[in-house]
């Protein structure tokens, strides 16, 4: 574990130094993704403000939930940027380079491909959470902060797992960029509104197969003292960490299978 952390910190140090070499790019990258998140939220805010809410959820509560998902996305963009852009690494043959080193891919990629622009969604997400909490304050309880930490970590693992599943197809097909973009766009558009706004089928899908509803929607019920208004009743409100572990088990399995099948760019 110590070696792993030391390796990540060394990579991170190199990545940050490299990014700071080009300060305009550094600021542009962070601002770009920050404004992406804010404008994405603005689209939802305009609609929700116009219609006064969605299925009993107020504007502030919806912004709060969306902010949480943007923080999670920011971590994925910065720490796991290499997985998001995996197609590129396969196409350019960089994967082969990683595979000959004496560490696993998931050990090397996070630090080696660290992208500072992920700070943009994190900052935007924190701002949206603060804004949402200001206009619709959550219940102040002693477990609010630890529960938020659990929710954010679970959401990161869920999104990472789904990204790994889509990205791992690049081992077989080389080209998966459009699908990765679609995954990201579908995720943020679905997370922009409460899951209860969707039909039973879509709710089931984003609870079981693509568990986006666990990233913020279900756990936010507890923060706002709401009874479950989704399809699956109250038990799911507590299950974000379990959903994250299950998603990671599947994601990691698919990823490992992809690595085993991968024959290198020269052999494809």
């Amino acid at each position: 574990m110590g070696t792993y952390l030391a390796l990540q910190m060394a990579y991170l140090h190199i990545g940050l130094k490299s990014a700071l070499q080009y300060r305009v790019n550094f600021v542009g990258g962070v601002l770009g993704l920050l404004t992406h998140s804010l404008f994405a939220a603005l689209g939802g805010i305009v609609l929700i403000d116009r219609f006064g809410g969605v299925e009993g959820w107020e504007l502030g509560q919806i912004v709060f939930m969306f902010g949480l998902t943007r923080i999670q996305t920011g971590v994925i963009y910065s720490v796991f940027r290499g997985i998001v852009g995996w197609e590129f690494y396969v196409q350019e043959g960089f994967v082969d380079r990683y595979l000959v080193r004496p560490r696993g891919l998931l050990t090397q990629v996070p630090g080696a491909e660290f992208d500072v622009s992920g700070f943009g969604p994190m900052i935007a997400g924190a701002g949206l959470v603060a804004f949402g909490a200001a206009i619709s304050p959550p219940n102040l309880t002693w477990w609010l902060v630890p529960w938020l930490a659990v929710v954010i970590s679970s959401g990161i693992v869920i999104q990472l797992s789904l990204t790994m599943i889509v990205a791992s197809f690049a081992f077989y097909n080389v080209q998966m960029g459009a699908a990765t973009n679609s995954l990201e766009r579908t995720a943020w558009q679905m997370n922009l509104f409460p899951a209860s706004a969707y039909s039973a089928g879509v709710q089931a899908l984003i609870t079981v197969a693509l568990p986006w509803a666990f990233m913020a929607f279900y756990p936010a019920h507890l923060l706002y003292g709401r009874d479950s208004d989704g399809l699956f009743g109250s038990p799911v409100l507590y299950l974000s960490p379990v959903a994250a572990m299950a998603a990671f088990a599947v994601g990691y399995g698919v990823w490992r299978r992809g690595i085993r099948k991968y024959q290198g760019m020269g052999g494809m």
Partner: protein
Amino acid sequence: MIHNRTSSLAPFLAITQLHARRTLVARVDILSNIAFGVLLAYGLAFLWQALYRAEFVPPTVPIDRMVTYAILGSVVTTSLQTGIVYYANWRIRTGDIIFDILRPINWQVSLLGDFFGTVIAQFVAVALPVVAISAVFLDFRPPASTVAALVFGPSLILGALVSYSIVFLILLLAFRYTQVGGIESAMRGFRPLLTGALVPLWFLPGGVGTAMEQLPFPAIAFTPLSIYIGETEGADIWVALARQAGWAVVLLATGAYFARRGMHKLSIQGG
């Protein structure tokens, strides 16, 4: 002057075909895109129904038309999303751009072929299946009139041209700042809102919608979609098409001008 090459139709069509094939060959990519597209279409359809049920605002557009608008907005956005900025930016950074500008075709036209090839492939292989599935299971409506049906295609093409022109202008910043991925990422956040693909301009508050209509972005999605569902009709259709064509010409000409300046900058870097 290596950048001032001929822009004849044959190489343009060849590049378009090449990139269309390149997109179509990635079948898992396409199938995943269709799956996410259908999910998004379902989500948007039920979302609009939920919003209409709230009845805070008297709906100016019937729900079936709004659902149609939302699904079309989603698939048009998917079709127009290409990796052209990231790809060309990478080539500018690495210097591989030199191989592109040495080709016997104008670089702007060559990239347009790349863009159109990808967009056409995504439209045929992803957007149409998503629309077909939506037509069976959701409240998706055909064009509002015969004129709307006939004009929708040309309006989409003009919208794609405006979209490319804006993407090209963003890309040109790479000659100066080396890395423009952040700007393109920001645009991906702006795009659904500014183009009217996510929220139609008539739902925007007060003067915001009117102000946004003066920008080129609504020409990308809002104009063709509002023609399709019959919100733009009669003589307004021709005004809307003229405005789209006007934006395409102005933005392409601006792109051509700054591309020439960018090439000079590139020569300095190389020298």
